[in-house]
């Protein structure tokens, strides 16, 4: 089991909002897949998955604000 966390997107940027998930719980994902799109004020950023496996749990819903380092998803 591995936790996918929100990576650092920019200096001084501590949080971003979930725009939408490209995958749903139960889907197979592989390392490098763009798994979720996040948005800061003027930038939309796709977070690449760091692990391969099954998307077990989505820990932040669309519209949620997530801090850098906070868990986005659990991959098993």
């Amino acid at each position, binding site marked *: 089991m591995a936790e996918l966390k929100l990576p650092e*997107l*920019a*200096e*001084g*940027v501590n949080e971003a*909002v979930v*725009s939408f998930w490209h995958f749903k719980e139960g889907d197979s994902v592989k390392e*490098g897949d*763009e798994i979720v*799109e996040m*948005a*800061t*004020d*003027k*930038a*939309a*950023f*796709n977070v*690449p998955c760091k692990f391969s496996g099954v998307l077990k749990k989505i820990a932040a819903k669309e519209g949620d604000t997530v801090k850098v380092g906070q868990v986005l998803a659990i991959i098993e």
Partner: protein
Amino acid sequence: MRYIDLGLSDYKEAYRFQCEVRDNVAAGIFGNTLIITEHKSVITIGRKGSENNIFKRDAIEVLKVDRGGDVTYHGPGQVVAYPIFKLENEARDIHRFLRFLEEVGINFLNKYGVKGEARPGATGVWTGDSKIASIGIGVKKWVTYHGIAININPDLVPFSFIKPCGIDGVKITSLAELVKEGLNIQDAKRDLKESFEEVPLLAEAVCKG
């Protein structure tokens, strides 16, 4: 840096094209590429945007798009640059890239004797109390897409149909309102391309290849 001028383009067609280029840059097939175009009239809503910020649309198409930011208008007379750049190493900072685009816009205006400035918390390029360029980006596999739109001599009326960038009471201006003579879209495209080549900081890091 490769340079592609799409002429006057349909937003959706240009969008498909920039995505294709982006995927090729991400795959290492293309080097960094700058696409410059003018769009046929369209209103786009970014990820932070809301349809509530569109008051009127007449016959103008409205599209939801995968860039940051709120509502904006594109139309003939506005030059739009899509830098499809691979961000590597210290350049992997999406807000630093926004600052880079502001610098490019300021450098461009300088060529016309217009003083542009960036405002903290209000991404874009401003001159006096008005906004002249809008910025919103997307990033996929650390490759940028979308970009900056600078008003050269567009019809500014459609901006009154929307709340640009979702900011209350923002005034939109164009180069034509500030510099009366000698404006030409082809020259503006060339000058904007040059600005991308001239601006230091990230320009050096990302414009190679």
